């Protein structure tokens, strides 16, 4: 293409110094704007929704509280003010990094969330790692010659696995490995005891592994039909080189996007998994605090989850942009 790039004629939208200065960072700024809007929307919606749900004072005071006691509690937590005033107070504090105190325990809400976070990160990390370690070789193997009889069989099994919801597989794991075989504990966590990690992580991996495998397989199969594979074959490349050197790197670049977006799904899965295994992470905390209408904690949780998902997405995006030579040069 004969590209004659030039700046637009002078005018209100002409490229100013400002534009050229921030030019390279525009994508990053866009991401950050999106994050800001996301956080704003999540906090605002949650605030009004949770306030509509019920009166936390009732929960705090217990069923047999007198009206006076209720009033006192409301005054103590600022629940007696008009909703809109409460909202602005809340947002004001939020900007200063104050998420308020847990209604249930009086701890700082964000502090409570952050102490629970490592447990979730542990199983989420393990699940992610396990899924990737299984899905990539398995998907590559399936996608290399998808029409073969054995691959079709395994594909069928993966397909059924994909249809088993994560919480069902968790229950099946418990039934088999904890109840019948008695190999692993069914409940609770202990940082020192790796055995307690296995079932929750495996159940969580179930949310990601089958779909990731299928995507890697499909992408590999597609890459194997590309022209450059034909070129490589015509150059005498043997089968393994076609797959591992030529097809798979291309296939994985496509699957990377999925890993990022599936992390949100994984966090959703953590809620169920942690509840089933009584695993004290943020998912378990979410169920706990929504049921007791512990608003500050729910708000802090949502905030934390949004940032977590955003970070993982951004990191996968950036790292794969770096790995893809086509995107790498575009960025420069």
């Amino acid at each position, binding site marked *: 293409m004969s*590209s*004659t790039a*030039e700046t*637009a004629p002078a005018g209100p*939208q002409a490229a100013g110094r400002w534009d050229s200065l921030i030019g390279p960072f525009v994508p990053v700024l866009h991401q950050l704007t999106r994050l800001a809007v996301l956080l704003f929307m999540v906090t605002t919606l949650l605030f009004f929704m949770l306030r509509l749900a019920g009166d936390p004072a009732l929960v705090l005071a217990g069923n047999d509280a007198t009206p006076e006691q209720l009033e006192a509690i409301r005054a103590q937590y600022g629940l007696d003010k008009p909703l809109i005033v409460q909202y602005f107070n809340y947002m004001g504090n939020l900007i200063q990094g104050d998420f308020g105190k847990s209604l249930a325990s009086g701890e700082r809400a964000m502090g409570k969330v952050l102490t629970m976070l490592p447990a979730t990160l542990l199983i989420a990390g393990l699940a992610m790692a396990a899924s990737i370690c299984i899905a990539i070789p398995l998907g590559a193997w399936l996608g290399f010659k998808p029409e073969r009889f054995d691959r079709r069989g395994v594909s069928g099994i993966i397909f059924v696995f994909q249809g088993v919801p994560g919480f069902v597989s968790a229950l099946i794991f418990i039934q088999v490995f904890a109840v019948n075989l008695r190999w692993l504990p069914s409940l609770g966590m202990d940082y020192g005891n790796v055995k307690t990690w296995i079932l929750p992580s495996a159940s969580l991996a179930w949310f990601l592994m089958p779909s990731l495998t299928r995507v890697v397989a499909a992408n590999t199969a597609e890459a194997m039909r590309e022209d450059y594979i034909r070129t490589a074959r015509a*150059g005498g*490349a043997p089968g393994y080189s076609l797959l591992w050197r030529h097809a798979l790197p291309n296939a994985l670049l496509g699957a990377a996007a999925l890993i990022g977006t599936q992390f949100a799904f994984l966090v959703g899965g953590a809620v169920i998994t942690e509840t089933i295994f009584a695993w004290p992470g943020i998912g378990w905390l979410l169920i706990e605090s929504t049921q007791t209408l512990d608003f500050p904690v729910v708000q802090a949780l949502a905030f934390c989850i949004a940032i977590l998902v955003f970070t993982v997405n951004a990191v996968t995006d950036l790292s794969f942009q770096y790995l893809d030579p086509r995107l790498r040069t575009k960025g420069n």
Partner: protein
Amino acid sequence: MVKPVVRIEDLSLEFISQAGAFEALKGISLDIGEGEIVGVVGESGSGKSVTAMNILQLLPRTKIRVPTGSINVLDHDVRAMSEKRLQQIRGGEVSMIFQEPMTALNPVLRVSDQINDVILRHKDVSALEAEEISLSLLEDTQIADPRRVYESYPHELSGGMRQRVMIAMAFSCSPKLIVADEPTTALDVTVQAQILRLLKERAEKTNTSVLLITHDLAVVAQLCNRVYVMYKGEFVEEGTTQDVIGNPQHVYTKALLNSLPEGKTPKSRLATVAAAMLEGGSNDKVIKSPVAATRIARSGDTVLEIKKGTVRYPKDYNFFGRPITFHTAVDHVSVDIKEGETLALVGESGCGKTSLANAVVGLNPLADGEIIYRGKNIKDHDPETRREIQIVFQDPQSSLDPRWPVWKIMTEPLTVGKSLDKAELRKRAGELCEMVGLEPDQIDRLPHEFSGGQRQRIAIGRALSVRPKLLVLDEPTSALDVSVQAQILNLLLDLQDEFGLTYLFISHDVAVVRHIADKVAVMYQSKVVEEGDTEQILSAPTHEYTRTLMNAVPSLEKAFAA
């Protein structure tokens, strides 16, 4: 005769699918001697690529059946070889060059890796030696800066550059034979000329045989010693290039040569293969028009005038999504067309000719300048008058809604603002079919039931439905085979004759332009560099670029003159 490098004997091949077997090759025999450059010429679907792929056994073995025949490479039957032995042959004794320069190289591997892989696989050399060999190979392909190309990723190189890399790769292990499958089809003419010359020089220098697969007789004439003409899975004619092209024997070869616009009287009707082979002959009847009343005398008035037309595309955006830099696709271009005339815009890919065409029909806004239609800025015309300008796109596959029957496609423009009943529309569709040389009883079929040429007829019929005065034809024959191209060119000339249509004809093909256009404007890097009467411009070009272009165009005459 010299000892053959490749000998194919009585080879038949069938593709097996759920729909049944399809016979792609019907007992073909071919041999290529040492140092010979042999062409296989044929149209799409004739089986020429299958032949090429089969020499290296690159077709999926589960999907084909080979009832008869043998393929001997250096006296060994490749069909009996193990996969391991084949891998030694591939890239070693026989290598290939493919058509698609954009996709044939792996996007995530550097050029260095891709060439070195082949060398290390076939030669007993160290990585360092391989690098040296690769660099000298790249140098041999006349790349100015081999080191930079060596370290590049494919997407950083132009199409021509990538094809040079493919050539370097193909020659890397001093093969006995190179199979080149349409190596220059996707390239611009000027680049094509360079690549072909390079291929020929390298082959002669290293005494390598070349099997060139192409649809382009002029390319064959320029390059090959011998040629095989392929038609429906058979070689219908074989001989030295001089004999086959100068004195064709088979009726298909004759028809194919006659269908080329090159060397024919401009605006004369071209012979077509279909008529010659007595198949689907109805496709080429002379139109008999039911709407002759609309015939317009050529007044010689200027219909369309583009004054300093400029088209820009936004390139970079600022934070708020406002474009801050632009790419200028059309740069202050001024041309005009008189009624009943054909103006051709000639140029290579990316020169801005399609952007200009889109601007004329209103698909692109002009950033600067104006388009005057019938003495008034086109923007000031009412929609009804603006419909007098219609467009026919390059690819008839994507320009027809795959879900609509032909009658609905053709009459869609008629439904605007009017409520015509279905019977009326179908009647009109039938008339349009006759105008463009389709059977009126085909109007209930879907686009995919038609061939490429027929689809282009449908697209032309749709454009004609609103009785346009000006047709913008954006490479209307580039996606078609030569013989089909002849049919469409005939149709366009007939229609112009019948209705006094004015054409703005966009093309990269100088032979076609010479055949159909009264005037020509040569576009280069967003500007019109030369403009005037077709014959004058094309036979005595004054601008540097036009001269380069004219020299680069492969032509039968030139090949024989040399």
